[in-house]
């Protein structure tokens, strides 16, 4: 079980609380976690990653275990603490005024 923390507007869109859980079979990577998240909540497709390129949207960041993983390979293994559910994988919206 992977824990994922989603930002306010995506919680509203998906109708969830701050934290959701997803199941990932096989390697636990950013790609597989986000694929599982979008499969469970299809309304999130296109809001975190581009539909076609699967690139992270520029104003979002991905954090886990106090590290910024936004620029890591999407296929790199996530920390063991994320894979075991001890720590959440965080999707964070950039802060901005206005």
């Amino acid at each position, binding site marked *: 079980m992977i824990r994922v923390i989603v930002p*306010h507007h995506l919680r509203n*869109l998906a109708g969830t609380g701050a934290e959701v859980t997803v199941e990932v079979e096989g390697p636990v990577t950013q790609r597989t976690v986000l694929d599982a998240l979008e499969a469970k909540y299809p309304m999130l497709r*296109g809001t975190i990653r581009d*539909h*076609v390129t699967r690139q992270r949207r520029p104003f*979002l960041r991905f954090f886990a275990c106090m590290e910024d993983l936004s620029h890591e390979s999407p296929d790199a293994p996530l920390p063991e603490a994320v894979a075991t559910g001890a720590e959440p994988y965080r999707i964070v*919206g950039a802060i901005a005024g206005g």
Partner: protein
Amino acid sequence: MTSVRVLVGTRKGAFIMTADGKRDKWQISGPHFGGLEIFHLKGSPVDPNRIYVSQASDWFGQVVHRSDDGGNSWTTVGNEFLYDGVPGTHQFYDGTPHPWEFRRVWHLEPSPVDPDLVYAGVEDAALFRSADGGQTWQELSGLRGHGSGATWMPGAGGLGLHTILIDPHNPDRLFIAISAAGAFRTVDGGQSWQAINRGLQSDYIPDPEAETGHCVHRIAFHPSRPDTLFMQKHWDVLRTDNAGDQWHEISGNLPSDFGFVIDVHAHEPETIYVVPIKSDSEHYPPEGKLRVYRSHTGGNEWEALTRGLPQKDCYVNVLRDAMAVDTMDPCGVYFGTTGGQVYASADGGDNWSAIVHDLPAVLSVEVQTLP
């Protein structure tokens, strides 16, 4: 009893305002999608309880919502807007070729005959069509494939397709407008397109009479006369009586012929409305006076409508999708401002009052007349 429902898109959410036929007491719901930019929302003429919403965000991209109960509840529908084939390029601000990139839906236009059919005008400029209530979208790429597409260049607000008019007598005939490419017409449901900009004069482009490149801000027609179109251009107010084959200027005695909105009275096809804005460098009303101008003669002769509108120290703008008319008798006219006011007139523009004063900046206003 007949009632009206005003659909307002703002920088920070959507608001829905309802009133009975007198249109003097309003119920307001919202914000719907609070905190998010709602570019446009519009109801189906066939099924008024079906409302389509364009939500755009720099953070989370494009989302499209649909209500089937008049805005009480919402379902998220498709947000995958993929350009057909290899998109190619248009011109960027610096004149270099720039790949077509989807950014947002500016305008949603539900079909007048089929509640599941809806068109979307998007940035970078293209027209999409959904035949399944917004679940999936297909580009009508003949528009971008028009020979001039590679030369289109964005205005400062982006290369947006913002106006979609569907001929109620022939749903295969559509008119669209793009900033800053101009107006186009199709007669085959969007497969092929013709630029319809003859008669436009734009001194901000190298050839002021070019076939394309004009910054059209809005076009409107009366449903009974779809060959007569009215246009608010970046500068100039114009009309055509032959479906765009030839335009002529009707700015007449307006204090400024710059502006964004233009609309037509529901029962008087020669009565039209604009909101003059001082200039393209100063996006606020002349003299700090918010005035709607009405022409009963299809242009050229305009009267200022001021009763109930601020006549000093007013420096708001009225954006291109932020005016609408209902079909009550007398006709109601509505517009929203970047200052967050939504003004309504229940008597064709003679008298105005604010439905609400303090919304976020208003991006769009639509109105439904309900049985």
